[in-house]
């Protein structure tokens, strides 16, 4: 039992990221409102970012900014174990940007759709399309 709990706690981040991702995915598939789908899409994307950030976490390490003095001669010996893995952070900066870019495009499309059909509900739009 304690094993189970410790497994659950040890990878709590991973479970949460999976939960969030599935929430987002479900919203994208099952929701009817276009903007809700976009919200779901963003949750989906942030879940992946959460996953990546979780990869980077390192026990007993600090943020990936080196302590330093000024001037070229002040060089500490840097130990890798002291700092959190920066690479996932870099990747996720990119992913966040991609996320906001996708959001912008998606919203622009939603507005175009609204202008055409005067609704954001997918089933209503499809009814209108079929009637034409």
């Amino acid at each position, binding site marked *: 039992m304690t094993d189970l709990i410790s497994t659950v706690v040890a990878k709590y981040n991973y479970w949460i990221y999976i939960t969030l991702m599935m929430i987002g*995915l479900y919203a994208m598939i099952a929701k009817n409102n276009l903007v809700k*789908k976009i919200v779901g*899409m963003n949750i989906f994307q942030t879940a*992946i970012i959460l996953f990546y950030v979780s990869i980077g976490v390192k026990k007993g390490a600090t943020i990936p900014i080196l302590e330093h003095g000024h001037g070229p001669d002040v060089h500490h010996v840097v130990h890798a174990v002291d700092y959190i893995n920066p690479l996932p952070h870099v*990747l996720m900066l990119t*992913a966040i940007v991609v996320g906001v870019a996708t959001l912008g495009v998606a919203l622009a499309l*939603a507005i175009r759709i609204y202008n055409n059909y005067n609704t954001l509900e997918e089933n209503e739009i499809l009814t209108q399309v079929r009637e034409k």
Partner: protein
Amino acid sequence: MSEQYPALLVIVPLLSALVISVAGWVNKRLCFPIAVAALGVAAWSSVGLLFRVLDEGVIVYKLGGWSPPMGIAYYIDYLNGLVLPVVSIVALLNLISSKKIVEQQFPDKAGPFYTLYVLMVTGLLGIVVTGDAFNLYVLLEIASLTGYGLLAMGEERAPLATLNYLYMGTIGACFYLLGIGYLYIVTGSLNMVDIARLLPPLYQSKAVLAAFIICMVGVWLKMAFFPLHAWLPNAYTYANSASSGLIAPLMTKVMVYVMIRLILTVFTPKFVFNTLAVHDAVVWLAVIAIVMGAVLALKERNLKKMLTYIVVAEVGYMVGGAWLGNRAGLTGAVLHIVNDALMTLCVFLVVGNIVYKIKGYAFGDLKGLFAKMPFTMGAFVIGALSIIGVPPTCGFFSKWYLILGAIQAHQYGFMVALLFSSLINVVLFFRVFEIGFYEPFSDHEGHEHHPAVMAEAPLTMLVPLYVVAISLILVGLYTGDIVNHIVQFVIPKGFM
């Protein structure tokens, strides 16, 4: 200069896209020539790269001077050496053809259109050329985002279709990203070659298995592999023809390239075909994709939509070929990337010409088209024959290798599916020919002349079309050289 070709290939279009976007504010007429020049340079460098690869073998280009796996590097080997010229040349030809379409449909937005167009090509070229798994994701997003923009500009239903594409595309790209994350968590690397080096001890890991499945599902989503294809037909059909002429030939093909790259370079065939051994199931999925694509195409009474379902079926060809797990099948799949890009371009350019002149693409609009647009339809016939797979057009030869691979792998279901789809294609295209050729029927029996008023598309649309049409035959005739000098080196040694 030639050692900088890999950088030029991507940088020149990127910078030109920026220049075009500025030119869009200053003088709209400059946009088109700049775009042509940019893609011309890209095409030139990609061909130059191909020849360098033929001479020297794999080229590695370190961006920022950092050696991989620290920095990002471009790897150009025979596989992407072959795909790059196809991408850039297809894009260039369609660009030339799109000039008139843009003038007709959205003259005010020529600037952003060409910007997005060139950016999309940048993205596609980048996807093909990169050797870094994450870099691929970023470029994939560039290609996708610009693609959404281009596709949404069309008929009334285009935005909704594109938004659905956006949802699916985002899920696909995110799945890919997640898969890369899984690989990263177990290997700690993002460089494709490096991952492949680190993976063998981890072949039994569940995480690697999941990474592979997730990556594949993501890529399949982007390439519209059958059960995941639902976004494609509408998105491509309702878009303007300048955009669909770029995206229909390239997007799915580039994603097939990514799939083959993942199989060959990242996960390695040993893992995919020996450890995992699910290829029979995937080939059966491909069979379903081909059959369903053909059947759904048969249902359509609308030329452009019919073609989009053919695209879905063709994706099945390539996926199936790649997953046959033998030399002939993979050769067929790689060859089909090239051929299908050209074939699809050919037929979509034809649709572009028809829409430009007739303002419609439903079957009812095509009556008497052989008399009205004989040159366009002539090229359409060549493209159609290539899709059907009639020698000496190139479509025949990739189908040849695919069927040969199917026979060697004892996947007779795949063989039958290919033949079935060829036969359906005959029906599909000859149905279109019939409408264009016979209808409207002459009133009284006998040899009534149809009132044939030529209304042919302008020369800037016909010339690219004929270049493609002729290249369909030339590529077909030179299949032997392509296979002997390029494709056979794609396949790793020891691959049966």
